């Protein structure tokens, strides 16, 4: 061992952390108990290997309680006839696939200092980014707390229950996502087997408990392969099944960006003078198209085709007399 003048740990806190640092240094390499005792000075200095092994067991337990896990796996090469410890020891997540290296942490902290999340529960100051979020970050993003509530069941494939449109639903949760500013859950409804989009805003808060209740053990359903990008393409004219119509709508040119923000797949059909443009897009959901066109009031004029003009005016006519 290099550096014989090296000072040994002066207390159990130091010793436990030295053990952790030793195993982090080993990376994917695992060691037998004899190797551990031989290579960690604090154990090697003890006269009795048995007491060193006991100390190592206690240090492992202490570290595990502090989120530093040294794993013990059965050693198949160990001679079963021989007495003693038949295990090998190594740090959990040796390649750091789920924990962050210093440069990754620095990048995350820069993000946390810039983007403030509003809506989730307050962070513990010891959590990564817990001291940066909540400060005067230039970006504020609101997230329904239920997003975080659903994430563990998504990862662990647990069934959940919630009240939705006055009915208790039991679903297999697959993914959480956003369309425009609204958050949705993609999940299979166990009542009819259908994979549906559930608006998180409409999951009713429960008076005396969480809005989302976990009702199964882990891995209660199989992994499902879906085209999630398509699942979150929520413009009704993407998924609607009304007969296709190519809409022609005249709008002021200055409202073209706002129009594109509301309707997907808009293209210019023809310019009308300097100030107006006729745009075109495919309608596959008539009702949602009409309600969205109404947001432009008298600034959007449906010019064709005749069936869309008729549908638009027939929508309005009964309302003109509805007092």
């Amino acid at each position, binding site marked *: 061992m290099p550096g014989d003048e090296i000072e040994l740990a002066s207390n159990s*806190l*130091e010793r436990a952390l030295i053990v952790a*640092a030793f195993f982090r240094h080993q990376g994917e390499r695992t060691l037998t108990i004899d190797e551990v005792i031989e290579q960690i000075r604090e154990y090697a200095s003890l006269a009795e290997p048995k007491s060193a092994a006991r100390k190592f067991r206690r240090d492992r337990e202490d570290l595990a309680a502090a989120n530093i896990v040294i794993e013990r796996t059965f050693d198949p090469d160990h001679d079963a006839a021989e007495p003693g410890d038949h295990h090998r020891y190594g740090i959990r997540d040796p390649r750091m*696939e789920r924990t962050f290296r210093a440069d990754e942490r620095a990048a*995350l902290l820069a*993000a946390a200092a810039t983007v403030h999340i509003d809506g989730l529960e307050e*962070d513990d100051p010891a959590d990564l980014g817990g001291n940066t979020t909540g400060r005067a970050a230039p970006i504020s993003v609101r997230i329904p707390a239920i997003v975080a509530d659903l994430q563990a069941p998504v990862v662990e494939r647990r069934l959940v229950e919630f009240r939705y449109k006055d009915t208790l639903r039991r679903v297999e949760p697959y993914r959480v996502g956003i369309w425009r500013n609204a958050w949705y859950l993609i999940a299979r409804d166990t009542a009819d087997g259908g994979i549906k989009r559930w608006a998180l805003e409409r999951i009713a808060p429960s008076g005396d408990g969480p809005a989302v209740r976990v009702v199964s053990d882990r891995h209660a359903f199989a992994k499902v392969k879906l085209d999630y990008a398509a699942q979150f393409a929520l413009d009704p004219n993407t998924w609607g099944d009304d007969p296709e119509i190519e809409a022609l709508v005249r709008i002021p040119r200055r409202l073209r960006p706002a129009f594109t923000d509301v309707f997907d797949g808009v293209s210019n059909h023809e310019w009308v003078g300097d100030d107006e443009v006729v745009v075109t897009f495919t309608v596959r959901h008539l*009702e949602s198209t009409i309600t969205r066109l109404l947001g432009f009031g008298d600034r959007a004029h449906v010019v064709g085709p005749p069936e869309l003009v008729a549908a638009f005016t027939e929508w309005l006519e009964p309302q003109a*007399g509805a007092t």
Partner: protein
Amino acid sequence: MPAERLVRKLAAIRRAMAQAEETGSADLIEVAAEIGVKAAQLASWIDSIVAVERRVAAEGWEPPTEPGLRRDGMTLTVGRNLLRDLETEPPDIDTAVRLFVQARQFQGMDPDATNLPLARAITKLERIVGQKYPIVVREAPYYVEVEESIAPTRCRVLRITYVNDGLTDSEREVEPVAVFAADGFWYLEAFDRLTDEVRVFRVDRIHALSKTSETVVPRERSHPGRFDLSDVEHRLTVRVRTSLLDAFRAFDVRVEAERSHGDGTVEADLVVFGDRRLDQLLLSLGPDGAVIAPTTYRARRAERATALLARYR
């Protein structure tokens, strides 16, 4: 040492080191008071970490790195956070979700597309939360120009053509104060020379922008983050087909309560902001929908429908 005691010590050290790593330094007296330990005790535990760092270096377990922990009296600074480097457990799911949304949003705004550490961290977060996450704030055509106009000492005056929520446009000169995002949109906080007051403009509604040569000292930022929309709030109760209620969400109608009638219709208490969206909502109720309250909105609905129909006759 019983595990609880070590855990308690590590929790205290972790808290102090996290603060020092994230904000530049930590005052051990403050941290000790917050967690209910003696400051001298916390300082001695911190010294144990310094000893471990020394040992790690002496053993050659890590290549020489930047200076680690430094305790100067009761002030702690952290060049590297040994405790976090040793952790083997990922952040809890709530923290991971938060970090993921922050990281994705930050990545979307970051002109440095080669931020590999951030990309690696995002891949790890994806593993932890089991899915990808979207960028939450939508792009705006003039975002870059707006951001570039703002500097700590001098801001460039902008001339903008702006479409307000009522779809009316105006040209104005504004003195930028800050750019920020909230609820999915970018906003420019600026002193508006047209109205002589500080206002907030949605960046995606700026449909023409030019930079003037004039610069001004930036005004103090108010950073509202949330907006008080109570002046333009409309509350109403309606009866509509259940399927329509979902369509209303596309134009920011808030459903406060809904009562199913069991015949495919629902009575719903709704909130909507601004006159334009109120009119849109009233007309979106459709031929078989009805306003239940307030009754004054029934006449408004009929009037708006009549006016709109007149354009088709």
